[in-house]
């Protein structure tokens, strides 16, 4: 016979109250677990999308001139001669400390070519990388792979009335049209796209690239640090982070996370109040019993021990059941919220935190009732005798 036996017997006898307490805390824990799991899953999904969204760092040759276009509007009569980067220098990217954050490197060469007496922009790309980076491109036919193949932007298709399989003479060389790029609403509509080596040869820029797009894994990755590192290994270039995209997504996620925490804290406070009120009621109900304990020689700390141990057992049970309920709710809610794209991953840290947080909340909410019980004077408690 120890104090634990008294606690367990009491819980068994007052099942209704114990179940009520467990359910109260369980709902709180389950809500917190659900919201945090959803945030986590959607965050991971957003990160994945971000990685697939495209480049978030752009490297261009350094130019002292300021840009003379805005929103696709070129200042008439002004034509800057583009500088180029040595393609071999891109190997230096492997030397940066955050190399593991670099998911894709997409070099491009750009230049004007003559087609039927008209000047059009030709872009040479690395097919192995470019089409993974531009996942939003919709192509009728197929992407270019090698040799004299062309993927044609929507505006060019319309200008020359092109079809799949047509041959187009570019700078005097024949190219096969293997793909038609659906309208993007961007400058891509104005392009002819060819494999990098072929475009370099056609433009007379062998071994040179006009710009490099880099996709960095940006969930908590130090983009600004990476920009500085790239700037160091690629002297003579301008390295710019496309921060707007990154920051917008991160801001949206941050807002959702904040909301989730706000709801979670509110629910936990309600749970704590429920425990507090129930435990206060229980202490009033057990005044006589506590008086007996005190009369037969239980110290105040023994009474504290009894009340807090009861709270610990109930809270731990609520923590475990709440976590499991939260996981179940997450599995049900995820397909509804994110179209089934996000997936749940077991997070042992969250499981441990859920149980310990439940115990902590239960104990904190029970502290005052426990102290009140321990401070009961035996004579006061036994006055009803």
């Amino acid at each position, binding site marked *: 016979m120890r104090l634990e036996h008294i606690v367990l017997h009491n819980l068994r006898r007052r099942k209704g109250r114990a179940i009520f307490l467990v359910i109260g805390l369980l709902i709180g824990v389950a809500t917190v677990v659900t919201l945090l799991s959803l945030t986590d899953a959607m965050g991971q999904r957003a990160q994945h999308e971000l990685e697939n969204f495209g480049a978030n760092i752009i490297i261009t040759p350094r130019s002292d001139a300021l840009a003379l276009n805005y929103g696709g509007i070129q200042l008439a009569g002004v034509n800057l001669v583009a500088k180029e980067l040595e393609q071999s220098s891109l190997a230096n990217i492997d030397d940066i400390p955050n190399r593991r954050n670099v998911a894709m490197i997409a070099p491009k060469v750009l230049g004007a070519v003559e087609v039927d007496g008209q000047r059009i922009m030709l872009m040479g790309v690395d097919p192995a990388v470019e089409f993974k980076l531009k996942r939003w491109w919709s192509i009728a036919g197929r992407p270019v792979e090698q040799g004299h193949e062309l993927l044609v932007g929507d505006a060019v298709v319309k200008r020359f009335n092109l079809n799949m399989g047509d041959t187009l003479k570019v700078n005097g060389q024949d190219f096969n049209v293997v793909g038609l790029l659906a309208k993007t609403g961007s400058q891509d509509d104005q392009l002819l796209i060819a494999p990098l080596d072929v475009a370099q040869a056609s433009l007379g820029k062998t071994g040179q690239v006009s710009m490099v797009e880099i996709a960095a894994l940006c969930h908590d990755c130090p983009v600004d640090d990476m920009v500085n590192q790239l700037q160091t290994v690629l002297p003579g270039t301008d390295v710019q982070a496309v921060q707007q995209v990154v920051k917008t997504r991160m801001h949206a996620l941050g807002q959702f996370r904040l909301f989730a925490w706000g709801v979670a804290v509110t629910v936990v406070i309600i749970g704590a109040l429920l425990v507090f009120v129930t435990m206060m009621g229980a202490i009033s109900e057990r005044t006589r019993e506590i008086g007996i304990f005190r009369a037969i*020689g239980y110290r105040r700390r023994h009474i504290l021990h009894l009340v807090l141990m009861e709270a610990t057992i109930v809270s731990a049970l609520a923590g475990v059941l709440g976590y499991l309920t939260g996981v179940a709710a997450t599995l049900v809610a995820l397909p509804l919220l994110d179209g089934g794209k996000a997936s749940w991953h077991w997070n042992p840290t969250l499981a441990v935190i859920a149980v310990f947080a439940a115990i902590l909340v239960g104990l904190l909410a029970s502290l005052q009732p426990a102290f009140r019980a321990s401070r009961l004077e035996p004579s006061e408690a036994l006055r009803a005798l």
Partner: protein
Amino acid sequence: MSLIELKQVNKRYHNGADCVTALQELNLAVNEGTFLGVMGPSGSGKSTLLSVLGCLTSPSSGTVWIDEIDVYGLSQEKQADFRREYLGFIFQSHNLIPYLNALENVMLPLAVSKLSSAEKRERACNMLKRVGLPDRMLHLPQQLSGGEQERVAIARSLVNNPPLLLADEPTGSLDSATSLQVMNLLSELHREGQTIIMVTHNRENLKWFDRTIYLRDGMIEKDSDGDGRSFSKAV
């Protein structure tokens, strides 16, 4: 040396502007092995006296010595230890814990002791056998008769071998046959040397006491031995 000595004990209860005097300048000495009966009308201070002796209610003034210990000079926690080691309580309404069986109720004072589980169990079993309930150990209080519950309460009060047993109307809610059983048991304990102080209204219990004090308005009106001889009077 007396086991119990109360000197100039006063106890006043305040309720707003009202002040009720429950004990007035009370002096009392009780020797070891005495079976002391405390009688008196309602409101005479019997239960207050028992509470003061039981280290449950501190007196407004005066001193209470039990076994040469100034019990109200002890800290609250030491008073709890004192109650556990020196005192056994028997309440009128038994006050058993309803969700514990008879054996567990008897073991209750031992739950916070350092004895092994086996020792606690053995002591509680022996005590239940001692009060004649060897076959009711695993019964819950509500499965026991009033007399049996009282005997469990007596077993619980004795399981720590306390020098002093305090009983508040232990037969108050029992029929006469069961009361007789309980008084026989207490008398047997007394014969074995147990000091017992018992509050009662029932004059039939007088025959069991070897000393009786009569309280009125918080003072000892009459103090007599078992034969009814008055050997002190304090008013």
